[in-house]
């Protein structure tokens, strides 16, 4: 009997002190996705990667906005959004105390502006994504002249780009086929 008590005393308390003390969390724990909207370029890679569609992107061209939304209720904490994010705007934290009484508190959203095409004026891509592309171009060591030339290209929508390349290039023959296609 005494021996048993000795063993018990030596073993100590196995029960965690949580919630009176913080629960130990391991290094690679995948908790709440922490989102930094300032760092987001609204490219939508996370929305494509998200298996349960907890992250969604909605474009409203008439309002000129692009809305990113995360519904934590559907999140399965797989970390795919973190993997694909080119700017590390979303990182899984160690936060796990996510219970809420009101479902609306599980939603997070961010609204971004859409840039208009420099040529036709139609909305075509998030403004921050276009600016980011220009910044990356500068980082590759391109000189100011090249950047200015490419800027026009980056600020043009794909439709206008196609038309322009046909106009400017030496593929005048191609243009004839394009016009013929329109008539038919």
């Amino acid at each position: 009997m005494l021996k048993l008590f000795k063993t018990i005393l030596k073993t100590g308390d196995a029960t965690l002190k949580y919630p009176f003390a913080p629960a130990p969390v391991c290094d690679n724990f995948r908790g709440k996705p922490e989102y930094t909207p300032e760092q987001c370029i609204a490219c939508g890679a996370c929305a494509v990667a998200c298996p349960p569609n907890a992250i969604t992107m909605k474009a409203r061209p008439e309002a000129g906005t692009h809305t990113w939304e995360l519904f934590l209720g559907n999140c399965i904490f797989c970390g795919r959004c973190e993997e694909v994010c080119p700017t590390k705007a979303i990182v899984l934290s160690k936060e796990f105390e996510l219970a809420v009484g009101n479902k609306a508190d599980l939603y997070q959203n961010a609204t971004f502006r859409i840039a208009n095409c420099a040529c036709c004026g139609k909305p075509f891509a998030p403004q921050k994504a276009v600016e980011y592309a220009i910044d990356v171009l500068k980082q590759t060591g391109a000189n100011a002249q090249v950047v200015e030339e490419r800027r026009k290209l980056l600020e043009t929508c794909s439709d206008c780009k196609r038309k322009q390349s046909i106009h400017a290039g030496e593929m005048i023959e191609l243009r004839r086929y394009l016009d013929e296609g329109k008539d038919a």
Partner: protein
Amino acid sequence: MNAPITIARQGTGMPQPIRQSEEIQKLKGTLLKDIQRSAYVYRVDCGGCNGCEIEIFASITPLFDAERFGIKVVASPRHADILLFTGAVTRAMRMPAIRSYEAAPDPKICVSYGACGCGGGIFHDMYCVWGGSDKIVPIDVYIPGCPPTPAATIYGFAMALGLLNQKLKATSHVQGESERVKLRHPGVPAELRVLIEREARRMAGYRMGADIADDFLGILGTKSSESLEARIQEYLAKENDPRLSEIVTNLCDISMKAIAAN
């Protein structure tokens, strides 16, 4: 005992979630204000994958020991104070779930447990799924997670009993006027960054590879009086992982080659 259950329907013919009368809500409020007894939990499986059940039972093991707060898992809804709804509510499990809700005595606390319970989770758009337990019964607390860890479960129970406060708040952001994204590792040429990220991900997998590339580029990009090799040796000694050492040696080779080529 098994009296027929009638469910109110909307104009479109779809069944409405069950509503709680105001008297019962008031009763629940007074009970929660001064709860001086154990809270018994009955878990209702509405068609889940059993991951949530495993975590619920993990949270009543001696390591987490929810029973020290009087939270006990019981075998019948007739004993229950708290109903835990797990699973995405499949068409077949909807009626059994409603039956156990009806069987539990008032006032009862309903908890939506896991990603599936909160909004359908990964099954949210399947044809036979209702997408969340709040589509059938009134829910008091949502515990997201896939599955929630035992610690998150205990936190959720404490919130349901009004012992702890909610931490999470909804956030909304609108793009500011001069908001611009910070480039990562501006000190490293973009081509070299791509080469390093690709090699790290090839060797360590997508997520860990990105983390390793991030650390390495951080060391490469910062200017310091110490030589690059010394700083990398210091980093490797700190991490003390032979796998990481091999990967970082490869990354070093790549960056040396790139620098020599320029």
